[in-house]
């Protein structure tokens, strides 16, 4: 195949959240087109938030995504709290972190085990995997259940959280519940170790492309909520200046907006967090990274899943420590902190499973008058396309089905959440 011509046309990429197509057009060995089309229906959440009472914002915006509902609610609450001058208590901050770990674990386990592992093990999906390796699937379901139970104890349910509200919580777990969850987390360590072992064996494509990696950062913890924006290209920005980083723009083949910072694209997500914040990882997570041969700065996008495995280790350990702190101080039922004012502008930012999420609200007399949400997958789209355009010319000698698989796996590695970013992905080889 000296000068191949072919089209790759993957309509509605599977095992991702939302709808996207991959379109590749190669003529006489030359790459003519290589797009990631986002064909999800437009969702208009920003317009729906406008004109609603501030107290509804976290409940409306959690419906952006069933997988990162807690993340959207948290970013939404932080935006509202900053707009209205609300300072949450230390107990609230600790509970939110613990709750956040539940969602991070649930999402990472789903992605690593059910969406990515089948590719590496050469089976079509988790259904045949359940027949080929039932112990692996049962382990994933067991770990996922604990993650969901953690969220359920704190906020009622993971999709869509109930007890999280501006200034605090409307319900609290009992100490006995916390103790039970803590003990189950400790017992989960053997499943976590088995997860690291599984991903040590999995073979991922050896493609590298260096890019700009951006994540929230704090000096004293592996940051998921608040902090400041830090780039591996240098530079840091307070959350309020997020627009200087995201620079949104539209392209006709996507209902999701795209972003760029210091280059034509940048990456957010587990790999970006690892590259920016590896020093703040829990020692056991650092150990797992070494076992998985993941070292900063890692520039193979397929390794995003491996970085998620490292974060699974970190979140389990940090959740145990958070539970210990809450059990030691004892949980007290506290009414949510009431806002001292009802007008203002605020920006909330969180590291949700797929990367940095921003919610920005303008509130007037208790009603939202302006809203802007920037979702991780939207930020990654331009970078995924840049990876695709760099990868395809290097594998033109492979068959069309192999190229298709490599591209689907690449897109999947980013763990895209297309209904978040409006809903995202189809691979179409043309």
């Amino acid at each position, binding site marked *: 195949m000296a000068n191949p011509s072919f089209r790759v046309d993957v309509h*509605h990429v*599977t*095992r*991702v*959240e*939302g709808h996207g197509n991959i379109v590749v057009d190669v003529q006489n060995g030359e790459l003519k087109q290589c797009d990631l089309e986002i064909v999800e*229906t*437009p*969702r*208009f959440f*920003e*317009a*729906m938030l*406008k*004109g*609603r*009472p501030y107290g*509804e914002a976290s*409940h*409306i915006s959690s*419906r*952006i*995504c*069933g*997988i990162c*509902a807690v993340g959207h609610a948290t970013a939404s609450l932080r935006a509202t709290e900053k707009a209205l001058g609300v300072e949450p208590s230390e107990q609230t901050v600790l509970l939110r972190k613990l709750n956040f770990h539940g969602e991070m674990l649930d999402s990472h386990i*789903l992605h690593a085990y*059910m*969406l990515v592992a*089948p590719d590496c093990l050469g089976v*079509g*999906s*988790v*259904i045949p995997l*359940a027949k080929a390796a039932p112990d692996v699937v049962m382990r994933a*379901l*067991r770990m*996922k*259940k604990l993650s*969901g139970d953690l969220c359920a104890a704190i*906020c*009622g*349910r993971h*999709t*869509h959280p*109930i*007890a999280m*509200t501006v200034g605090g*919580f*409307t*319900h609290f777990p009992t100490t006995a519940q916390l103790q039970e969850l803590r003990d189950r987390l400790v017992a989960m360590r053997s499943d976590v170790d088995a997860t690291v072992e599984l991903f040590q064996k999995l073979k991922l494509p050896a493609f590298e492309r260096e890019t700009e990696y951006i994540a929230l950062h704090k000096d004293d913890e592996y940051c998921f909520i608040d902090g400041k924006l830090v780039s591996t290209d240098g530079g840091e920005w307070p959350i309020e200046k997020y627009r200087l980083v995201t620079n949104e723009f*539209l392209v*006709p083949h996507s*209902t999701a907006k795209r972003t760029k910072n210091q280059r034509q694209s940048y990456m957010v997500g587990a790999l970006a967090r690892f590259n920016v914040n590896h020093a703040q990882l829990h020692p056991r997570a650092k150990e797992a990274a070494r076992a998985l041969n993941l070292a900063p700065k890692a520039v193979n996008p397929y390794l995003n899943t491996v970085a998620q495995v490292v974060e699974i280790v970190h979140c389990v350990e940090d959740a145990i420590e958070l539970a210990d702190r809450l059990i030691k101080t004892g949980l007290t039922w506290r009414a949510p902190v009431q806002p001292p004012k009802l007008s203002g502008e605020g920006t909330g930012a969180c590291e949700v499973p797929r990367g940095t999420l921003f919610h920005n609200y303008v509130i007037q007399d208790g009603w939202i008058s302006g809203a802007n949400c920037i979702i991780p997958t939207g930020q990654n789209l331009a970078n995924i396309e840049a990876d695709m355009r760099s990868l395809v010319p290097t594998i033109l000698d492979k068959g069309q089905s192999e190229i298709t698989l490599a591209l689907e796996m690449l897109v999947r590695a980013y763990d895209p959440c297309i*209904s*978040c970013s409006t*809903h995202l992905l189809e691979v179409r080889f043309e």
Partner: protein
Amino acid sequence: MGARPKVAFFEFTSCEGCQLTVVDSLQTHPELLDAVEIVRFREAMSEKGDDYLIAFVEGSISRASDEAQLKQIRERAALVVALGTCAHLGGINTIRNRQELQSVRRYVYGDKADWYETYPARPLSAVVPIDAVIPGCPIDRGEFVAVVTALLQGRKPWLPDYPVCVECKLKENVCVYQRKQTCLGPITRAGCDAICPTYGDGCEGCRGLIPNPNLSSMKNVLAEHGMTADETLAKTTLFLTYQMMELEAGTDG
């Protein structure tokens, strides 16, 4: 026992949280996988089957070009089940139905608004006949298992026709109104085990109205508890916009 019935999952405008809840239900009911054969579940598997008995459809319809696919699903499936509030009642997507469409489009996409197709969001039943619904945002895991069981037994799934208040009382919750909050429990269909009041928040009506709801009485109660007309409108249009607009138009029969 004959071949397992084939089931397929589809989604339109939604967060896919209901399908995620289906995945979660497998954590506690793995035997579901022995009872049915899943031929299509894009979020979880690559295989794409076009031969299925039951189609579970999540999401509302929010653009004309999605109608053809839904009609095709209707033709192929013996049973179409609306999965969750978006499919059942249009859900959160219908909030924007009370705003002028073009201004909604411009607010999000600016001068590129015409690049992206949309129309007022609607439930599946506005496009094709539906055989069963699993209400809720998101669906309740237990109810999903119960509805699937009923369908496999050839029965029509049963949904409560009484309000959330009944379940809330059975849980011995302190009434949300006693805690100086407001709640749509008196007019909302039960079946969620009153999960929101149990976790300290008022019912938001995601499961839809009970038959013959006393809306004027509900509005009086909300007013007595300090809600302005605007706040009441917001409360009753979070999940209920489509049903409320139908009632206003007098088309509910």
